[in-house]
C-alpha cells in the first residue's frame, strides 16, 4: 500500500514537488521562529537565573512589601538556613549555589560634583554572586559578566552606567559613549550637598576607609539604618556596567554584603533580605521548591518564610515568553491551515484524475477502506517527506543565520542581541512540529480519500 502510494506521488512529480515546497516553507517558518523563540527563552532564563537564582527564600511578604522595609522583612540567622539547605539530603545534589543578598534603596552621592541619585543597592557575597552568574545550563554562546569587586576590599562597589552618567563619574571611570552635560545646564551647575550630610559622610569616611584608594571614582551611599536614622558609607567604584536595560542601569549599585549589612544594621547586623538558590538544572525547580516548602513547614518555623521562583520574581520573563508563545502559536495555526488546504487540494486533484483507477481497484476486489487507506497514505507520505525536508532545510538555514552574526536591539534593551536560531538538539520541538505537519497532511487527505472510497464502482469506471 505504501509502495503504491509512493509511486502515485512520484507519478505527479511537479504537483507533489509544489505541495512539498509549500510544506517545507511552512515548516521552515515555524521552526525558524520556534528556534529563535527558544534562544530568547533560554537567554532570558540564563540571565534571570544568573542574577537571582532559580528560587529565593524570603521572609513572608517581602515580595510585596519588603523593599519599603528591608529591616522588617529581613531573614535572621541566615547562615543557619544556608547550612540547612546545603546539607539537606534532597536539595544537596540539586544545588549549584546558595548565596545571600541584601537589597535596599539608598541615595548615591558624588560630593565632588554635588550630585545625588536614588539607587537600588545589592549587598552581595562576591564569590557566591560570581558563581551564580556563571550558570549556563543551555550552553549559550555568552560570557558572563562577573562582579569586579575584590572580595578582600570591603569598600569596593560597582554601579550601573546610568548611575555613573548622572553622578558625572564617566571621566573617572574612563567610560566611552558617556555624555557630559552642556555648560550651563542644571546638571553642570549642581550645588554642593547639604552641610549635615557632607559632615556625616566625612565622619564615616574617616572612621572606616583609611585604606580606601584615593584615586578613581568614589561616591557616598546614604541609607536609612535600623530605626530610621541615616547612615552613610563611602565606596570606591571599580567600574560602571550595563545590565542590558537602561532603567536598571540608572539605579544599579552592587557592594559587599558585609559593608551593606553594616550600613543598614550596624556592626552587629547579620541579616539579609533573601537567599538566592541556584540549581544545577532548571528541570529540578519544582522538586527543589517542594522540598524547601517542606523545610519551611517543618524545620524553619521560628520565622515566617516563603519561597519564590525566578519567574515570579521577574514578571518580564513570563510576559516575554508568553508573547513569543502566542506568536508561535499563531504562526503554527496559519501554516497548518496552509498545509491543510495545499495537501487537501493536491489529494482532491489526485482523486479526480484517478477516478477510473479507483473503479478498477474496487472491481479487482479492493475494499472501500483500502481506497481510503491508499489516499490517506499518500497524504501521510507527503507530510512525512515535507516534515523531514522542512526540518533539514530549517537546520541548514539556522546554521547559516547563526554563522552570519546578525544582531538586533530588543525593546528596552541597551545592548544589541545576536540573532541565534536554536534548533540543533531541540528534539522535542522538532518532533512536535514535524508530527503536527504530518498529522495535518494526513487529516487533509482524509476528506478526499473518503470521497474516493464512497464512489460508485460503475460510475467510477465510466468516468471520462
Amino acid at each position, binding site marked *: 500500500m505504501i509502495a503504491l502510494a509512493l509511486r502515485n506521488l*512520484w507519478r505527479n512529480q511537479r504537483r507533489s514537488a509544489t505541495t512539498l515546497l509549500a510544506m517545507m516553507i511552512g515548516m521552515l517558518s515555524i521552526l525558524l521562529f520556534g528556534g529563535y523563540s527558544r534562544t530568547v527563552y533560554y537567554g532570558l532564563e540564563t540571565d534571570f537565573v544568573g542574577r537571582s537564582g532559580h528560587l529565593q527564600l524570603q521572609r513572608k511578604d517581602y515580595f510585596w512589601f519588603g523593599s519599603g522595609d528591608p529591616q522588617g522583612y529581613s531573614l535572621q540567622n541566615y547562615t543557619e538556613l544556608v547550612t540547612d539547605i546545603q546539607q539537606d539530603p534532597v536539595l544537596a545534589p540539586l544545588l549549584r549555589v546558595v548565596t545571600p543578598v541584601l537589597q535596599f534603596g539608598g541615595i548615591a552621592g558624588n560630593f565632588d560634583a554635588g550630585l545625588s541619585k536614588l539607587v537600588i543597592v545589592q549587598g552581595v557575597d562576591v564569590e557566591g554572586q560570581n558563581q551564580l552568574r556563571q550558570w549556563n545550563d543551555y550552553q549559550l554562546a555568552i560570557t558572563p559578566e562577573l562582579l569586579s569587586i575584590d572580595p578582600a576590599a570591603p569598600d569596593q562597589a560597582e554601579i550601573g552606567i546610568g548611575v555613573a552618567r548622572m553622578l558625572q563619574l564617566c571621566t573617572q571611570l574612563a567610560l566611552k559613549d558617556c555624555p557630559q552635560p552642556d555648560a550651563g545646564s542644571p546638571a553642570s551647575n549642581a550645588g554642593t550637598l547639604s552641610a549635615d550630610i557632607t559632615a556625616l559622610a566625612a565622619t564615616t569616611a574617616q572612621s572606616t576607609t583609611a585604606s580606601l584608594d584615593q584615586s578613581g571614582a568614589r561616591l557616598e551611599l546614604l541609607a536609612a539604618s535600623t530605626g530610621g536614622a541615616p547612615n552613610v558609607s563611602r565606596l570606591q567604584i571599580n567600574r560602571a556596567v550595563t545590565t542590558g536595560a537602561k532603567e536598571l542601569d540608572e539605579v544599579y549599585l552592587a557592594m559587599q554584603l558585609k559593608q551593606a549589612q553594616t550600613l543598614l544594621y550596624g556592626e552587629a547586623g547579620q541579616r539579609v533580605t533573601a537567599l538566592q538558590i541556584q540549581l544545577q538544572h532548571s528541570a529540578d525547580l519544582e522538586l527543589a521548591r517542594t522540598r524547601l516548602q517542606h523545610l519551611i513547614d517543618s524545620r524553619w518555623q521560628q520565622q515566617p518564610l516563603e519561597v519564590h521562583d525566578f519567574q515570579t520574581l521577574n514578571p518580564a520573563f513570563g510576559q516575554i515568553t508568553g508573547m513569543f508563545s502566542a506568536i508561535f502559536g499563531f504562526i503554527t495555526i496559519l501554516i497548518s491551515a496552509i498545509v491543510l488546504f495545499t495537501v487537501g487540494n493536491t489529494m482532491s486533484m489526485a482523486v479526480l484524475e484517478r477516478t477510473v483507477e479507483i473503479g478498477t481497484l474496487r472491481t479487482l476486489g479492493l475494499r472501500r477502506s483500502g481506497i481510503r487507506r491508499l489516499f490517506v497514505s499518500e497524504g501521510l507520505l507527503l507530510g512525512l517527506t515535507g516534515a523531514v525536508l522542512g526540518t533539514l532545510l530549517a537546520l541548514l538555514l539556522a546554521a547559516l543565520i547563526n554563522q552570519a552574526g546578525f544582531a538586533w536591539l530588543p525593546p528596552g534593551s541597551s545592548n544589541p542581541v545576536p540573532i541565534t536560531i536554536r534548533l540543533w538538539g531541540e528534539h522535542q520541538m522538532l518532533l512536535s512540529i514535524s508530527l503536527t505537519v504530518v498529522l495535518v497532511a494526513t487529516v487533509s487527505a482524509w476528506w478526499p480519500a473518503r470521497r474516493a472510497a464512497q464512489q460508485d464502482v*460503475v460510475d467510477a469506471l465510466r468516468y471520462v
Partner: protein
Amino acid sequence: MSLAQLQHLSKTYALGQLRVQALTDVSLQLQPACFTVLSGPSGSGKTTLLNLIAGIDRPDQGDVRIAGQSLQQLSDNALTDFRARHIGYIFQNFNLLPVLSAFENVEYPLRLNQTPAAQRRKRVLELLDAVGLADKSNHRPNQLSGGQRQRVAIARALVHQPLLVLADEPTANLDSQTGAQIIMLMRDLQRQQKTAFVFSSHDPQVIASADHLVLLKDGHLQSPQPLQEAV
C-alpha cells in the same frame, strides 16, 4: 449444475431526469468452463448485465447467484472480497495500474487475497509466460502496446484462478489481427484453466469463438442459444 444463475434481473438508470430501463426481467444460467458471449446492439444492456454478474453493480430486482452464493445477500465488503476471490475482469481499456509493472499488475489480485510471496511469484511468472510476456515483466503499461496491455489484463484476470472471468468488449480497442490473437489466447487459457468466460461483445470474431451466445435487445433477453443458430 450451472455456475451462475441470473434470476429475473431488472435494472434502471437515472439519466438526469430520465429513467432508462437498462435490463428487464433477465434470467439466465451460465455453465462452468464455457465461453459465453453477451451480444447485442449498443444500449442493449450487455455491460449492465456483465456488471451485475461481476457484482460491481446491484440489480433493482432479481438476484445473481454464483456457485450457490447470492450476491444480493452480501454486504459491500463481503461482495468486494467475493470479487477478489472468485471473479476476474478484463476491461475494454485494459485498465492496468500505470504505476505498476506488468508483473505487479498481474500480482495485484494475489496480494489482495494475501497469497504468500513465493507462491505469488511462481503464479505470476507462469501467467506472464502463458500470455507471451515473460520478457516484459518489468515493463510499465506505457511501455507496452495495446495488445500487450490486454495480455497483461488477461493474465491479471486469471492469476487468482477465479470461478468466472468477465470481459467487457475486450477486443474493441484492438486492431482485428491483434483482437483475433487475443481471442485465441483467451480461448486457449479458458480451456487450460477450465474457467468460465463471459464476454460482452458484438465483434464477430468473439461471437464465432463462443460456446454460448446470449442476445440482448433493449434490455430484454432475446435468447440464450447455441452458437450455430445465432450465427
